[in-house]
């Protein structure tokens, strides 16, 4: 069933249609949110809020863009809002994530090194300028094309390409490599 048909059914009150739509897109939304918040529990919470918002806003969706583009816009905006709200909590949680990090094949020293490296990468991504971060996450976590990212961000493809280049450059600079 196409997105358009599903949306029509949802608007006429079908919960089953909304569940189908959710099953179709929840992983994409969750992955994108993970790019912003990095913590599974937080990402699930934000994903849940995003789908509730989608359900409430569907009657106002006017097919100006594809449903997936509209959904990505909501996802990005709500992820950024959640980051702004939980700035303090996230500092503590990221520390917790470092100490709770575990893999089976690595020695404790290697684990600690990886946790430290992850923390630096996470911080480098999180401190990118907002537009660069959006483009970087949509490109690397969702592997969206530059055209699609341009649609989500309401920018030209050229602008997105520049944002991605700057994001990569900034990341390498922050992580101490040329």
């Amino acid at each position: 069933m196409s997105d358009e048909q599903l949306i029509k059914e949802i608007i006429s009150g079908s919960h089953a249609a909304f569940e189908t739509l959710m099953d179709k897109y929840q992983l994409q939304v969750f992955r994108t949110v993970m790019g912003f918040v990095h913590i599974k529990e937080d990402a699930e919470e934000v994903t849940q809020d995003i789908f509730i918002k989608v359900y409430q806003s569907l009657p106002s969706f006017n097919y100006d863009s594809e449903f997936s583009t509209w959904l990505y816009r909501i996802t990005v905006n709500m992820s950024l809002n959640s980051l702004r709200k939980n700035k303090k909590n996230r500092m503590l949680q990221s520390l917790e994530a470092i100490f709770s990090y575990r893999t089976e094949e690595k020695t404790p020293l290697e684990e600690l090194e990886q946790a430290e490296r992850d923390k630096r990468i996470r911080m480098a991504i999180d401190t990118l300028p907002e537009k660069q971060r959006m483009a970087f996450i949509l490109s690397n976590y969702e592997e969206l094309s530059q055209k699609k990212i341009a649609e989500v961000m309401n920018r030209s493809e050229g602008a997105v390409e520049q944002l991605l280049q700057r994001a990569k450059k900034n990341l390498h600079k922050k992580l101490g490599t040329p």
Partner: protein
Amino acid sequence: MKTKNYIDDFIRREKETTLNPYLSTRVMAKIERLEKLERRRTPIWQTFALAASIVAVSFLGISIGNSYVESYTPDRILNINDRHIENLSFYNLDENE
């Protein structure tokens, strides 16, 4: 080059994070709860109608109260006062029991 690999590896691990399989159930439950609340909530027009009817009833009561004019009817008072019609103390006397 190494940094790029580390970043790619970090992103790959984050992308592999599994999603709670009950997420959609949780969302649907929350939506249903919100809809129930929405249905239970009194519409604004009902609140206004109730407030307006209370004001109208109060105003009507005050108007009716104000419109009452007390009229003095001495004849009726005389009839009601049956102390003059029958002397009850007569039955209280011992010899008349």
